[in-house]
């Protein structure tokens, strides 16, 4: 387990990777990658998730499984996988380029270690995670399944099919996380899709719900600990991470503008000037 100071250093480097990757690719999704960078850093590096790049297999046997349902968050996802040792960090420079294993959205065909399943068409990952969790239940594999949903993504009907299914089947080896950054492509999630009160919604669907400040490492680690404490008790667990779209870069923060847009080289420099290089750029 690394300290909060260490986690801050890692997430700072991850934020630099995100900016540099989308700038180099001239496309990609920085906004949600920046909003989810802190709690995902905690998940991969904070001793929360049981995972090991050396013994990783796509079946997830003997380890925890992480499903990225919001598949457009590849910048943060690939950066974390590389920094955790799943593949060389230099490969981040190939993001979204022809022939790369770092496809715009996660791909199995590309064979990138750490990636369990393709995603990108939204709303599907919770169903997938439910299946993985049930498979682990059948196999008496006591490990957990984590899944990350976007808040805008939660406008998809299938999310709520899966919400009902997980509670009905008492899938209690599953921790879902929602990056509640309150922005989507066309604007605020409440103005675009009428998302409303996620906490009440998930509770009424029979889930254990925890809310957390998604940029406070102390709170994040405590929330993950609480979530793990709720597993094995007959209910699925939802962690609502209250975050800010584009967090860490002043001109990207709190706006939908940078959901899926790459900064120019000049703007990327402006962003990078605000983020400390801690582990060395790729």
């Amino acid at each position, binding site marked *: 387990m690394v300290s909060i100071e260490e986690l801050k250093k890692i997430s700072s480097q991850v934020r630099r990777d995100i900016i540099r990757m989308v700038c180099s690719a001239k496309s990609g999704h920085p906004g949600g990658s920046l909003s989810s960078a802190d709690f995902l850093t905690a998940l991969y590096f904070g001793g929360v998730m049981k995972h090991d790049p050396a013994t990783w297999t796509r079946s997830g046997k003997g380890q925890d499984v992480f499903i990225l349902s919001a598949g457009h968050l590849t910048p943060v996802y690939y950066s974390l996988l590389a920094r955790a040792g799943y593949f060389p960090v230099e490969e981040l420079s190939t993001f979204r380029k022809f022939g790369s294993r770092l496809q715009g959205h996660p791909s*199995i065909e590309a064979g990138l270690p750490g990636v*369990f*399943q*393709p995603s990108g068409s939204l709303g599907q990952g919770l*169903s997938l995670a439910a*299946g993985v969790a*049930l498979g682990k239940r059948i196999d008496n*594999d006591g490990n957990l399944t984590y899944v990350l949903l976007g808040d805008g993504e939660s406008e998809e*009907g299938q999310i709520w099919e899966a919400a009902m*299914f997980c509670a009905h089947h008492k899938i209690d080896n599953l921790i879902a996380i929602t990056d509640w950054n309150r922005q989507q492509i066309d604007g605020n999630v409440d103005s675009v899709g009428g998302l409303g009160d996620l906490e009440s919604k998930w509770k009424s669907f029979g889930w254990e719900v925890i809310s957390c400040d998604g940029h406070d490492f102390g709170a994040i680690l405590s929330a993950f600990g609480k979530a793990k404490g709720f597993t094995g008790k007959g209910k699925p667990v939802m962690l609502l991470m209250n975050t800010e779209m584009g967090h860490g870069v002043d001109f990207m923060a709190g706006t939908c503008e940078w959901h899926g847009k790459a900064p120019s080289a000049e703007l990327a420099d402006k962003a990078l000037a605000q983020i400390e290089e801690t582990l060395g750029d790729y």
Partner: protein
Amino acid sequence: MKKYTDTGKKDTRSGFGEGLYEAAAKNPDVVALTADLIGSVKMGKFAKDFPERFFQCGIAEANMIGTAAGLALTGKTAFASSFAEFVTGRVYDQIRQEVAYGHTNVKIAASHAGITLGEDGATHQTMEDIALMRALPGMVVINPCDFNQTKAATIAAAEYYGPVYLRFGRPSVPNFTPEDQKFEIGKAIIMNEGTDVTIIATGHLVWEALKAAESLEAEGVSAEVIDIATIKPLDREAVIASVSKTGAVVCAEEHNMAGGLGELIAGTLAGSCPAHMEFVNGQDRFGQSGTPSELMTAYGLDAEHIAIAARQAISKK
């Protein structure tokens, strides 16, 4: 001509149910999911005897496909079943991402396919499912012709690793293929050898093709009948070899023209063995309520129409 005997009418979906049960009894990794249709898709015995491997998904097909893919990731052989329309058209994108692009070991078990679903009418009668599933890279598409073949195909699908679309139907139809057959994925079955015309059929229309061949024989016409139980991958060699010999071909299927077996055969022959072709299919229409046999006749999906099409194909030679 080779004689086939109807050993007693049975529904192909019951062949699926028996095949699934047999596969599950042999392999503890076989799991099954359905969306509020246990009885219709013949999963009752499986659900009763293997409750820890059976998942009732409720009326939520999209979630069912994703859950099946998740189970498959952990090493399970997952059969997800509902009516053909609801496990193709309704969930095409889920199948595309989670099953086909994800290369997961999921079997889409599609019951009540085609117009012979009958009285429920067009909302439930898919005639487009083969087109949708054929279009997906790497998807195996199987459409067996009777109870025995469906049972064997289900066992073969369970033994094969990868995405499979397995299509079968609701009504009781003649059961005429061998009880102990081994189903080979990707292999066409020459049901009858002939020299004047090749009748290529799939699913329920294989029996009709054989009946058509019998009536043609009475007129002195020798028809070769091929059962295309695996639509994808297509047994190109068998099709080309037969049509090179006969020079005329009829394609018969309980599906629309667009994206169906007929277009597939036409595309296959165009490059290597152009021939005079006729098509027996649902054309470009939706179905309607009626008994299966009424609908087969009304939509021209029977032995009589196949025989007419065969004579037309021969007359163009």
